Each structure stands twice: as structure tokens, then as C-alpha cells.
């Protein structure tokens, strides 16, 4: 840990028991720092459980605006006896360990190389409050108050946040202020404060917001005009549809009749959820589902139907740690291969890779335009880290002039003008046929949608030529998609290095930080961020113009690397995997260490190891 810069650069980790009300106290801490204009990133590390198991909340503060996770805990707030041994061990040398000193700390928790901040949280709570629930809840607020003194949090930010939180229930505010003050006063009376690392007000977050990716996806679906959502609860995707439901019912209800311009069904399983989405899209409504790995596995068969029958479909996959049930509350980017080639037979699907809540919003909207534009499933590949953790993000923006792109849909007037409607006919030469919505015209445009092979006029056929023609047209459509999907972000105007790094999704924060560190150490690298699959020419050119490309991803098997190899015919030796798959979000340190290890013979890169 580099201790030169002690202002606005540290990590605080809270060790709590699940279900004790710690989440809102910890969020109060994070939000106060955000309100001080300082970039901050919280990560929830929670169990697949409702009450009683250990849960952690890790907050990184970064003057430089690095929003990825960082290794090394500077200050541990340990209020969970269950995990205390592990918590003591995880503090960096010279760091701080804040604990409840109502009981004496057992000798096994004593380390010589860290500093202890004992605060009798339970005793203070018992003295100040009589209600059992209050005693539990305010213990959390007391330690936030202690942190305010230790880290120099501006107290008026707490006052502002509490006033907003308890609007309409103002009588709850004084008790919270009292708890904060108790903690703060205890620190002032007993310790040297503030600590050597602390906060200073800045103006670094501008008009940014702090929001989680799932909420942004749900909002995106509202703005995109989705009217039918079908889903089955599964962590970590559940809050996507919950957010969609909340906003849709807030903004799409007729004040007179109480009726809403939305239909949301909690399906019996993921098989049904995706079936409903396909049925609704077939019938002309914008419809989507949200799921995670196990749900995506179940949806495979229907995705093949949507691909082959060419029905717009939007699926938001909030990835978690697989395989099988895996670690349901940990993050990973491990559904890439499954999503890209979902279902039997020759299939390929369009994937989008958001890296921030703003992109979750923008790409969800884009997904609906693409689904209808290409008449195929579009999968938004987000993950638990992005979906469920709050992120500092640019604000969400909507252009009121933006019209929904409904793709090639024939209305009654258009049908009257054509002699014979061919549902699967490549009229424009781009592989994308025209479709009709049921009930458009009394005598024209009806056809039979099916997963069996058919000719250009949607009539069943087992003719090899007709089948192959259709499969080839689907590839033509795939090639058309390459220039319709979001283009990659290239970090340099001109490639200047022999090596490059390639990343996508939530590895972006850590990768950008690693790039900066490499640059500071005079080992600059070219970089590209993939935003979608299929890969376009820019991706291909980037790889071809470098000797080696490090592919950063959060799975064991290097799934994106495989995809690059398969789709672009790249020599696999040229692509070097940098992998993080322990279920926690990737860090810049992991990237730098793996790059330097894999490039051990290169003395330049060795320098990076030192940082």
C-alpha cells in the first residue's frame, strides 16, 4: 500500500451480521463521502441467506476516481464476532481495527502490527436506548459517528441525508443524530483523531449520481417503452424487474382509471418467462426478462426458437458465480459462451456488455431497438457487481426527440402495396426480412411462425436448398449486426505499443486503473473495451496490430478469449488471459500481477510488479 497520499485514498471494510440493519448505516457512511464530492465505491459482499450469516461492505475512497475494488483494508469495522478472526487477518499492516470493546478482545484477535480502536458500542447502546431493536440498529449508527471523527466526515452531510431519509417521519431524526454524536464524542474523548488517512471535501463527482446497475436497467426498460415483463425471481437479477415495476407503476398509471400501461407477470419458471417475452414481442409489444446463469440455461431452447423464427427478444443477464448454483451472491462474467451460442443447432446471439449504470440504462434502451431492428434475441450481459452495488455514474440522459426504432414492420397500408408478403424474404439484401404483427390486415400478412424450417413465405419445407438459403441469410443478418451494435471504445488515437489489453464490462474500472499505473511506470499499453458481440472490424484490427493482447475477464476459462478466437480466427497464442474468478470483483492489482507474471522475461513489465 502506497501511503504517500493520505487524503481521500483508503479502503474501509465493515463486517456485519446479515439482517441487523447495518446496510442503511453503511450506506449513510458512503453517501456522506459522495456528498463531500469525493469518488467512492461500495461493494456488498453478502451471503445467500436472509438473516444471521456474515456480510461485508467494503468502501473504497479514491481521489483519483478509481472505482474498482482495491486490495488492502486500511480500516476494518468489525462488529461480527463470527468473522472476527478472518477480519483481523485481513487488515493491512499498520491499518486499524475498530471493534466493540464492551467485551474484552480475546488474545487470538491481537496482532502487533495493527492499531486497535475499541469502542464499547453495546454498552453505549444499552445505556442510551431501552428498546431491543433500537439497541441493535443504533449500534450501527454509533460506529458511523465514530468514523465521522476518525475520517473527518462533514457532519452536516449526515444531517442532510437523515432529513431526506426520514421525510415525513421527522421524529426519528433526533435519535439518529444522538447515536452519531455518541460515536463521534467517544472518539474525540479517547483517541487521536482524525487518522493519518482521512477525507477532504472536493469537487470531483460533478453531476454524477450514485445508483446500482439493476435500477438503471429497470429504468432503461421503462424509457425504452417495454410494456410486458415476465420473470422468475433469481439473485442477482431480481431487482431489475422490481425497479421496472416500481417506475412503470409510478409513471404509467392513468390517474383517473388507475389502469397501467404495463403488464408484469411473475412466471412459474424461467422457461415460461422467456416464452411470455417471445409471445409478447411476436405480438408487437416490447417485452423483456431478467435472469441469471441458471435461468439462462433454462431459457436456451426458447432462445433458439427466437433466433430461428426471428422474434425480437430482450434478456438482461445479471451474471453470478457458476457453474450450477455456484455462489449465487458473488460476481462473475461466466455466462459469455453460454449466451453467445445459446440453444442447439447453429445459433449466435447478440450480446451487449455494459460497464456502468449509465451504460446499463443506455444499453437496455438500445437492446430494444436492436431486438426489433434485427428481429433476434439481444442479451445484456451485466453482472452482480454492476447490478447490485451502487456505483458513481454519469447521470442518466434521455433525448425527448428519440423515437423507438421498431424495425421492419409492415402496416396495413404497406401490405396493400405489395403483391405477396414473404416473411423470410431478404428484400433489402441485408439479411433482415420484414415482419407483420397479428391483426394488422384482414387478408394479407398472416403467416405461421415456427421453429421448423420453412421457405421465404413461411411455408413448412424440408427442402435442403430452402433450409440452407435461410441459414445463410441468418449469417448475412449477423454480419449486418456488426455495424449496428455499439462500437468498442479504443483508448488511444493511434496504436503505439506492441502489446495491448482488451476488456469488457465490470473489469473496466480495474483495467483503466491498471492502464494508468502502467503508464506512470513508463510501460504504456494500448487498450480497447469491447461493448458488444458480434465483434466488428475495429476489434479485429486492434488484435491484428499487436503482437500480444491481454484479455481481461472474470471467469476461469477465458470465455471471451475463446469467442475472439472462434469468431475472428485469431491464433490463441496471441491472446493472453488475465483472469479473476474467485467471485469478488477484479482489482487493478490482480491485472498488473498477472500481466507481469505472464510477461516475466520482459524487464519493463517487471517494474509494474513493484507497484
Amino acid at each position, binding site marked *: 500500500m502506497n501511503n504517500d497520499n493520505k487524503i481521500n485514498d483508503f479502503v474501509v471494510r465493515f463486517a456485519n451480521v446479515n439482517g441487523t440493519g447495518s446496510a442503511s448505516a453503511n450506506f449513510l457512511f458512503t453517501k456522506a463521502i459522495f456528498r463531500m464530492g469525493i469518488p467512492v465505491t461500495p461493494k456488498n459482499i453478502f451471503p445467500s441467506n436472509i438473516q444471521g450469516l456474515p456480510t461485508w461492505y467494503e468502501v473504497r475512497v479514491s481521489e483519483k476516481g478509481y472505482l474498482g475494488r482495491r486490495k488492502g483494508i486500511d480500516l476494518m469495522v468489525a462488529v461480527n464476532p463470527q468473522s472476527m478472526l478472518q477480519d483481523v487477518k485481513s487488515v493491512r499492516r499498520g491499518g486499524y481495527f475498530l471493534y466493540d470493546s464492551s467485551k474484552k478482545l480475546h488474545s487470538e484477535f491481537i496482532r502487533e502490527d495493527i492499531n486497535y480502536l475499541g469502542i464499547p458500542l453495546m454498552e453505549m447502546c444499552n445505556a442510551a436506548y431501552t428498546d431491543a431493536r433500537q439497541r441493535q440498529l443504533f449500534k450501527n449508527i454509533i460506529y458511523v459517528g465514530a468514523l465521522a471523527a476518525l475520517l473527518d466526515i462533514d457532519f452536516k452531510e449526515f444531517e442532510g441525508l437523515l432529513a431526506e431519509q426520514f421525510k415525513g417521519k421527522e421524529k426519528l431524526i433526533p435519535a439518529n443524530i444522538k447515536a452519531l454524536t455518541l460515536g463521534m464524542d467517544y472518539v474525540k474523548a479517547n483517541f487521536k483523531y482524525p487518522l493519518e488517512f482521512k477525507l477532504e471535501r472536493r469537487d470531483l463527482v460533478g453531476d454524477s*449520481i450514485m445508483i446500482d446497475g439493476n435500477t438503471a436497467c429497470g429504468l432503461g426498460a421503462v424509457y425504452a417503452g417495454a410494456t410486458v415483463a415476465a420473470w422468475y425471481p433469481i439473485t442477482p437479477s431480481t431487482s431489475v424487474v422490481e425497479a421496472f415495476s416500481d417506475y412503470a407503476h409510478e409513471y404509467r398509471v392513468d390517474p383517473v382509471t388507475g389502469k397501467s400501461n404495463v403488464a408484469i407477470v411473475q412466471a412459474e419458471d424461467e422457461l415460461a418467462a422467456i416464452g411470455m417475452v417471445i409471445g409478447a414481442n411476436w405480438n408487437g409489444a416490447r417485452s423483456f426478462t431478467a435472469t441469471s446463469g441458471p435461468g439462462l440455461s433454462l431459457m436456451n431452447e426458447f432462445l433458439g426458437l427466437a433466433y430461428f423464427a426471428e422474434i425480437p427478444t430482450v434478456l438482461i443477464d445479471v451474471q453470478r458465480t457458476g457453474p450450477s448454483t455456484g455462489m449465487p451472491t458473488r460476481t462473475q462474467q461466466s455466462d459469455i459462451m453460454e449466451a453467445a451460442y445459446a440453444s442447439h443447432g447453429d445459433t449466435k446471439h447478440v450480446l451487449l456488455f455494459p460497464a456502468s449504470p449509465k451504460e446499463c440504462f443506455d444499453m437496455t434502451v438500445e437492446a430494444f431497438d436492436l431486438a426489433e431492428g434485427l428481429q433476434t434475441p439481444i442479451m445484456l450481459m451485466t453482472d452482480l457487481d454492476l447490478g447490485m452495488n451502487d456505483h458513481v455514474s454519469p447521470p442518466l440522459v434521455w433525448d425527448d426527440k428519440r423515437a423507438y426504432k421498431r424495425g421492419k414492420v409492415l402496416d396495413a397500408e404497406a401490405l396493400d402495396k405489395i403483391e405477396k408478403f414473404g416473411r423470410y424474404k431478404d428484400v433489402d439484401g441485408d439479411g433482415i426480412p420484414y415482419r407483420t404483427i397479428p391483426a394488422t390486415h384482414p387478408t394479407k400478412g398472416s403467416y405461421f411462425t415456427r421453429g421448423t424450417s420453412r421457405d421465404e413465405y413461411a411455408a413448412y419445407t424440408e427442402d435442403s436448398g430452402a433450409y440452407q438459403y435461410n441459414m445463410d441469410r441468418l449469417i448475412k443478418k449477423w454480419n449486418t449486426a456488426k455495424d449496428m451494435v455499439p462500437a468498442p471504445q479504443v483508448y488511444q488515437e493511434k496504436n503505439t505499443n506492441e502489446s495491448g489489453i482488451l476488456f469488457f464490462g465490470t473489469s473496466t474500472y480495474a483495467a483503466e486503473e491498471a492502464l494508468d499505473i502502467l503508464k506512470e511506470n513508463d510501460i504504456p499499453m494500448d487498450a480497447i473495451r469491447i461493448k458488444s458481440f458480434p465483434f466488428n472490424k475495429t476489434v479485429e484490427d486492434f488484435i491484428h496490430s499487436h503482437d500480444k493482447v491481454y484479455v481481461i475477464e472474470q471467469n476461469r476459462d477465458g470465455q471471451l478469449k475463446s469467442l475472439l478466437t472462434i469468431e475472428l480466427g485469431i491464433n490463441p497464442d496471441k491472446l493472453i488471459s488475465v483472469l479473476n474468478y474467485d467471485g469478488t470483483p477484479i482489482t487493478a492489482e490482480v491485472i498488473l500481477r498477472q500481466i507481469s507474471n505472464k510477461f516475466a522475461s520482459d524487464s519493463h513489465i517487471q517494474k509494474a510488479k513493484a507497484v
Partner: protein
Amino acid sequence: MSYLRPKFRHPELPKNKLGYTLDYYEGSLSTLCAGCGHDSISASVVQAAFEMDIEPHKLAKLSGIGCSSKTPAYFLSNSHGFNSVHGRMPSVATGAYLANRDLIYFGVSGDGDTASIGMGQFIHAVRRNLNMIYIVMNNGCYGLTKGQDSATADLGSKNKSGNTNPFESIDLASLALEMGAGFVAQSFSGDKRQLVPLIKAAMKHKGFAFINVISPCVTFNNNVGSTKSYDYVREHVEATSTIDFVPEMAEITTSHQEGTLQKVKMHDGSLINLHKLANDWDPMDRRSAMNAMQNAKEKGEILTGLLFLDESGNELHDILNTSDKPLNKMVESELCPGSEILKSINAGFR
């Protein structure tokens, strides 16, 4: 393969209120085996849609996978059709219905499709009171894979290879009753006089309308010892009633014995005239219908006709309180909250 029918029709075929002749409701030529019960059911669907003056494009026909699920290609060629995946037509129908509440949704499935992989989706569609007609063409076997027993094959029924089915059968009509379906009927593919009015009444029912039609498989399950052969079914059919369907309060003229007519009024004023044949059975009473089914089963009879009707349940859009205007007709101004609201949402996240 689908074949086109010969185009020639008698020039003076009767027309319905919309000016369409019966052939307007036909589909492409069936590719099922000659004598297949499913073709008779398709003919009844054509007849019912013609008599009900249905605009074909305002009806969507949906199916799963199997012989029965092929039939939507053989009727109503001016309707949009959707041949989905095995057993999962109910979910596709649910989505389609949510998108546009104004169409008639006509689902066709088989016993292999509904009583096995589709069981979950079937009962959940019933549970949600999805506003659709759901016909099962029930032949007790898997035709497309050459005659394996299905889950509706009766215990002790003998298949073509001479094997006796050792498993209990799933009774779909009883299941629909149990799950709360508002319209439950059972019929026989060979009894067009009964089936056509049942389909017509189902089209008028608001909510889930289920018709289980015994439809013999002439190729794989028409042998001696099978309980779903033409001969067996004809010998064991016990009708609850004869049935007339009278759309929207037209004059009722019936000739029957006094005391056996029960008029059942539907939500839009249409009437079902039931000429009751079975005693101690009340079509408006779910428990009575279930008893009648159990009694018939014990006697080895196949009870046919309208078994139960209750139109008081809320269908899915009522339950969700969705706008009257179909969701698929909505545009940006009805769906997108706009930039000003987004600014205020952003402010809430600062």
C-alpha cells in the same frame, strides 16, 4: 409438407354475416394420417369460426409440438399462427395476450404436449385465468415418434405393440376443474354436433376455456384393447347434455322434454342451452362437475359435453389492471416518462 387445397368452390356456398364462405376459414391441406381424429377437430374449428362470424385476422392460433400442434396450419389460414416449443404454448399465449387483449387466442395442444412437459405451464395458465381457448387433442399416445404411451393413456389400456400401460392416467379435464378453470368441456372428435357448439361457447367465454377432445390415433392407438380407439370411445361416451350455443340473446327455439333444459347465460348475453342427459349434475357447480367426472370414471364412461361454467372470475388483464388499449398499440408518449422526469430521478440519486 403442406399442400394447397384445390381453389374451386361452389359459387353459391352460404355466407356468414361478414360475407365469408366456409372455405375462407380453412387452412392448408392436412398432412396427418387419413382418418386422424385431429382433422375432424380442425373441421369443427373451421365450422365454429364460420358460424361465429370471426374475423380470422383477429384470432391468433398457437400450439406446441406434436401431431395436434401441427393442426393450426390446417385451419384459419388468414390468422397468424405460432407453433412454439414442446409444452410451452401457454407461456407464448400469455405473452401474446398481454401484448394485445383484443384478439381471440386459440391454443391447440396434445396429450404429449400438455400432460407431460407442458403440465406446469398448463396449470399456471389456468391459475392465471388466461383469456384463451385451450383444446387438447387427446389420443393417449405419441404419434410423431410412432406410438409410445402418453401420460393420458389409461391404466390397463393396450397399445399397438400389445403392451399394457401400467401407470395411472392424467385426467386433464378434472385437473382443469381442480385448478379453477371457468369453462371445462370434454368431447369426442367424431361428435361434430357436440364439438362445434362447445368451441363456439368457448370462444365467447371470458377467461380460460378448456376442451379436452378424445381424438383417436388411427395409426398407433386404434387397436383392440386401447381405451382411446374409435370403437372404444363410441361405446363408452356418456354425454352430460346435448348443447346449442346461441350467440348474444338470439331467439331460442328448442324442442326437448320439459324439465331437462338448462339455459346458461354468458357474460355478453350469449346463451348455452344444455339439454341435460345426466342426472344430479349442475354445470354451474364445480363440486357437482367433479363428482360427475369421478362417477363416470368409476363406471368406465367418458363423460362429454360442457362440464362446468363459471364466468365470474377475473381474467389476467383484469387482475393486472392493465389499460383497455392494447399494449402493442402504445407509442412513446404513452410509455416514456421523458427527460424532465429523468432529471428528477437523477436528483434522487445524488
